[in-house]
């Protein structure tokens, strides 16, 4: 068997072949590798079943704070005996010297050892020596430990240890985990000088690298654009800033309509559009509004600059300028709404809109294009419901069944431009229009429930989605 070994692994095996049963620290010393390298190497060898690690624990005993004091100055009971060496003393006298817990412990242990006698007098208790105090096993143990840390098994008098452990902070028991590394049988045979032929560990994990890529939302936008092109639509471009004339007036939205208010639409500060339409277009649009909506149409309102609220302004402008007899056109891009940003609303999102003018421009044709569009996106369960758009009549919306959510979702809208929209601009054929927001479709595709994710530019998401 040709085994690929890392240099670290080889050094560990070499060392263990010379001397078995080493701790990681010992290996670090013998191989001159860092302790981290040794730990990693041991882990690799274990996975390859070349090394075994026996874990055991060792208990050592050392002196605590009170133990260290007793080692230097004697246990409290010894201090007491020294105090009353020259005759009996009152409790008060003794307490003064052996303050706090030391006093109680001293009295109790001296009594237990049979060293003292206590007499009660009218002026309080006195204490005097009863017997000359010999060295106790506890004292012997404290001397034995001293300032060292000794293995528990070396302590013979277990009872003395037990007593000391019961007293606060005299001795400390330290449990130390020990790892002893040894080689498995098959590793003992390995000749580390021979195993290498430039081969590497092909099974090991490699570092993560992330591919550079286009934005996921852009991918969906491109996919949808491709479908429009495939369906015979050609792309036109429009600007994001528009006059109210093309964004609203040309689309039959009255000037006092709620949708035109500041709270729904972004108006651009101190900007006025000057030459956005021909005098005829302005005159005709004005007439259509006054006649149908009964109000005084104002040129100044139509000159206010807005961030477009839909891509329809680009398509209607194209129609008014080009007046094609037959065409399939689409416009795709950002649109804006002055809304509070939330998991389902953005102030800026992408919209696509296609129009058909010419032959075969019935509502059924429009429905057919929709059906094909959704089929291309892989959505086959669809139905149509009537709806309302200010500039189309009749108007429909597509409902698409989403298996995961188990419900019908409203996607693109469609309709035929109102004569009140087309006639003033000199367009005399029916114009089919259809379109909608792209983020909604992208959310379904990437299974997102928060639309903001597309614009957070969280690299972790962009790199891995």
């Amino acid at each position, binding site marked *: 068997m040709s085994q690929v070994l890392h240099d670290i692994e080889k050094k560990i095996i070499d060392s263990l072949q010379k001397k078995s049963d080493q701790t990681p620290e010992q290996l670090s010393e013998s191989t001159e590798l860092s302790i981290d390298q040794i730990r990693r190497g041991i882990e690799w060898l274990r996975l390859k079943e070349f090394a075994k690690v026996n874990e055991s624990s060792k208990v050592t005993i050392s002196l605590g704070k009170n133990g260290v004091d007793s080692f230097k100055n004697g246990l409290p009971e010894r201090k007491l005996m020294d105090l009353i060496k020259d005759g009996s003393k009152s409790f008060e006298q003794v307490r003064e010297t052996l303050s706090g817990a030391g006093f109680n412990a001293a009295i109790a242990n001296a009594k237990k050892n049979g060293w003292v006698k206590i007499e009660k007098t009218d002026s309080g208790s006195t204490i005097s020596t009863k017997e000359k105090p010999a060295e106790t096993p506890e004292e012997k143990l404290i001397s034995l430990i001293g300032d060292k840390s000794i293995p528990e098994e070396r302590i013979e008098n277990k009872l003395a240890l037990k007593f000391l452990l019961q007293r606060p902070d005299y001795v400390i028991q330290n449990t130390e985990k020990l790892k002893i590394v040894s080689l498995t049988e098959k590793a003992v045979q390995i000749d580390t000088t021979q195993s290498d032929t430039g081969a590497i560990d092909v099974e090991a994990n490699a570092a993560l690298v992330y591919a*550079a890529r286009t934005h996921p939302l852009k991918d969906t936008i491109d996919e949808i654009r491709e479908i429009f092109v495939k369906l015979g639509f050609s*792309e036109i471009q429009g600007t994001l800033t528009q006059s109210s004339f093309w964004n609203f007036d040309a689309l039959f939205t009255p000037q006092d309509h709620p949708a035109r208010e500041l709270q729904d639409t972004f108006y651009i*500060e101190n900007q006025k559009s000057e030459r956005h339409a021909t005098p005829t277009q302005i005159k005709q649009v004005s007439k259509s509004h006054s006649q149908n909506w*009964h109000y005084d149409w104002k040129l100044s309102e139509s000159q206010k600059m807005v961030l477009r609220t839909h891509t329809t302004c680009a398509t209607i402008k194209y129609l008014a300028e080009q007046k094609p007899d037959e065409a399939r056109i689409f416009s795709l891009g950002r649109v804006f709404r002055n809304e509070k940003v939330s998991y389902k609303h953005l*102030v800026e999102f992408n919209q696509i809109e296609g129009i058909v003018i010419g032959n075969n421009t019935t509502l059924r044709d429009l429905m057919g294009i929709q059906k094909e569009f959704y089929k291309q996106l892989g959505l086959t369960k669809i139905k149509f*419901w009537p709806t309302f758009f200010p500039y189309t009549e009749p108007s429909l919306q597509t409902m698409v069944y989403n298996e995961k959510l188990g419900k019908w979702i409203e996607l693109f809208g469609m309709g035929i431009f109102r004569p009140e929209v087309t006639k003033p601009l000199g367009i005399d054929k029916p114009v089919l229009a259809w379109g909608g927001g792209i983020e909604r479709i992208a959310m379904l595709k990437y299974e997102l429930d928060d639309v903001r994710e597309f614009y957070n530019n969280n690299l972790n998401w962009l790199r891995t989605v």
Partner: protein
Amino acid sequence: MPVVELNLNRIKKLVSGNITKKKIIDVLPFLGLDIESQDGDEIRIEYSPNRPDYSTEFGIAIGLQGLLGIKKGIQKIKINKKGKFSLTVERSIPSRPYVTGIIAKNGKLDDHSIKQLMNMQEDLHLGIGRKRKKSSIGLHDADKLDEIGSFHLNYAVAGRHVSFVPLNGSSELTIDEILKRTDVGKNYGWILEGQRNVPCIGDYGNQIISIPPIINSALTTVTPKTKNLLVEVTGTDKDSVEDALSIVVSTLQMAGFEFEELKITGYKNSTPQLKERTIIYDPKLTSDILGIEMSQSNMVTCLKKCRLDASIRGKKIKCIIPRYRFDIFGEMDLVEEIALGYGIENLEPKLSPSITIGEKNNVTIKTDLITKTAVGLGLLEVLNSSLTSKKILYELTKRNSSEMISVLDSKSQEHTILRDSLLSGLLENLSKNIHEIYPQKLFETGVVFSKGKPIRESINLAVILAHKDTNFSEIKAILQSILRTQFKIDCKTKTSSQSQELFVKGRYADIYVNGKKIGEIGEICNEILDNFRIRTSVVGFEINLSGLIFD
């Protein structure tokens, strides 16, 4: 979209006929009504703003009766001409010249139906009433007027010191106090701004009934005990006030009321006729627009199912539109009515072959090429809003903000300024990702804005690299490569004479192609990086693609 709450049992009763609740639920969407939520028999419906007649159960029931075939054709409304109430316009009121109204009799109300009527009133005020400015409605208990003998009302003006007890109030307040202290006064007082005397409806005994468009008097409060209603609508346009009245009348008719005229005279005002309109429909439109062949008699049936009247007149169809369907402008609207009557679900989609060949716009094609090269160079694409904040665009980057373009009244502080640079956005992206693995190499293509006549838009490309070893040479190599690949454009970088706070001194340059400046490139200076809390080296460039690879 406005919303109305319905109770299925009440709808079922109103529709009458042997109809299951499930059938009602199934048909609602085909009236153009979206079911927003359902909780047992209570459902919330979204309706289109052009159909305020759907703002109550009553109106929706009228529509359902038609589509379900229970009652077809126009809802008949009879107005008894011998009413005892009258309203005289005493003088011309330029700020709110028009008033109309009607007496609705012998109805039965309860808390639920009053709530429905309130919903209708709110909708009419907000929508066609344009927040009560264009038109507003007052509903009054007519019997209260009867009791005090007030049959003859007038529409005039009152001084702001005049007082009365307003609706839901307990004591008299002057008009001035009502405007300043009550919620409705605060919400709608702006409509009366600058007027010393305000419009008011009263009787000839100085009893105020209403100060439109603000509030009614408490005297005529409508309660579940009310049987007879006086409806008044005031506003700035004669058609609009009658539009609103027609919805109220159609709704009250369905709620079980009968009608009696409120005679109105004076200053271009007159008793409302609520007249129906006639539109002559060309049946050819049905096949031209819907793409279905249908007999004229079928079209008549479809129109009647939408609660219109229709009859064949030779090669045309004569269609009668009730007053409350003012959403119908012309023949094209009737096409939609026919489609609804026919049933949208019965329209078969048809895929006709395209005779045109689709193609992408040149800007898209060229931008895609740039994107491909950028990805090939290991750059990750990001997308930022083009409406962003002053903080990111100018404050953190210390860029010149003198040509800033703002929008008015944004609801979000992060979206107030149109960007004139992409690079600032990319720095913000790095800032949000300081815990992600480096190197971070990002690019964006997108629209930037500058002041022009009135605003210039162009498409820019920006690239940013962030890692500890990056430097000017690395970013310049990328710039050269992007322009040379596909486009064979050679660019030059020239020491800039202008001082740039964004870049490290002596480590930035202007980018030139054929002697024309197209952008800037450099190492981002530490102070700016600190502002964005970025703790590694960053270099970047931004160039104008418009005018370079497309027009």
